[in-house]
């Protein structure tokens, strides 16, 4: 039910935007949101190649994200991801500048600009590596729980996971950072991926969701006790 409500919310959002664009012709607005609905397959059960390690990890991560965002209605914070995207975009920008400059002014004249672009590109690559290793650290979700009274700063929930190559043990770690006290609490579980996927590679949400909820509640109840 939560998934259907979220789906309705999402298509409502896209319908709203297309409605604003083509106010005169309602028919095309509805048609476009209908196509977008057909494109999005949030309700379809996740089916992946069970032998592909990265697909397994991605599907588990995405499902954990879905549970946290839809069931508990947290708001996703895109700060970390945006940082990474910005660094990559700047690197590609340097590459494109080098390409165009070299095309406009053939080689010997373009030497200083090329040298600058190449060095900047590799510096950006170094920055990207440091960013993903130390700042991002395999965190794939940062979600905020807005305080209902609006007085205190938001509580932050962070999800990070790891799945070693050719291994079947999947570790999911949930970190709770209280907005008020700035204290950090974490909980994690390590389970074999065989517990969550059936033989055809479909992710069984009925087995996976209780795990996430248990993890979440273990951190939430500690807060209440305090």
């Amino acid at each position, binding site marked *: 039910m939560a998934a259907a409500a979220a789906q309705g919310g999402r298509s409502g959002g896209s319908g709203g935007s297309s409605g604003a664009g083509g106010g005169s012709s309602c028919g095309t607005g509805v048609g476009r949101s209908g196509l977008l609905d057909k494109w999005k*397959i949030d309700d379809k059960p996740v089916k992946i190649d069970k032998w592909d390690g990265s697909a397994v990890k991605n599907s588990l991560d995405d499902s954990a994200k879905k549970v946290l965002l839809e069931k508990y209605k947290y708001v996703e914070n895109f700060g970390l991801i945006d940082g990474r995207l910005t660094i990559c975009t700047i690197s590609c920008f340097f590459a494109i500048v080098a390409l165009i400059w070299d095309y406009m002014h053939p080689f010997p004249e373009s030497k200083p600009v090329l040298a600058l672009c190449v060095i900047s590109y590799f510096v950006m690559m170094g920055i990207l590596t440091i960013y993903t290793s130390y700042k991002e650290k395999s965190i794939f979700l940062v979600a905020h729980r807005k305080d209902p009274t609006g007085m205190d700063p938001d509580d932050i929930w962070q999800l990070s996971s790891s799945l070693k190559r050719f291994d079947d043990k999947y570790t999911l770690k949930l970190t709770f950072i209280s907005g008020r006290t700035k204290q950090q609490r974490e909980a994690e579980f390590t389970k074999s991926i065989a517990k969550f996927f059936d033989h055809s590679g479909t992710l069984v949400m009925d087995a996976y969701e209780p795990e996430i909820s248990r993890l979440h509640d273990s951190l939430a109840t500690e807060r209440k006790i305090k």
Partner: protein
Amino acid sequence: MLSLDFLDDVRRMNKRQLYYQVLNFGMIVSSALMIWKGLMVITGSESPIVVVLSGSMEPAFHRGDLLFLTNRVEDPIRVGEIVVFRIEGREIPIVHRVLKIHEKQNGHIKFLTKGDNNAVDDRGLYKQGQHWLEKKDVVGRARGMQCSFCWVYLCLSTVSKKSALLFLGRCHTFRYWMFGVDTGL
């Protein structure tokens, strides 16, 4: 409605993830491009790696060998060195050995080349009325060699010279990546 099962992964991605996939691809291409441009800057030659197309420099170079070039201004060209040069009006550079040099006091030189495996010097290849080559025609000097067999390029060039040239011309960005080096005849 045709089933788009193979696109399921893409459909499940949100905008940011899609953009990241595009960026990932862009970064792979950019890395290759930046390494190539970096080599260009370091060696000073506009085509640091070339492929030998024909057998006019045997037994030193065989068809399919890779050559590493540098084009430093400080190094003077001397007789006996192997240079890669481009003749005006021709796209494909040629790799031959320097035979004779005329040098002025101010460093301006004119030189004549010949392929090791050829019977005559290259005057027949030069432009009409041109008897000597100059520094500006030089793409670089051969500094290292890697025996290899660039089968793709060689197959194309044996099938037809035109298709090989088209292959060169089409990959505009990587035009210098697989510059063929040829005796010309």
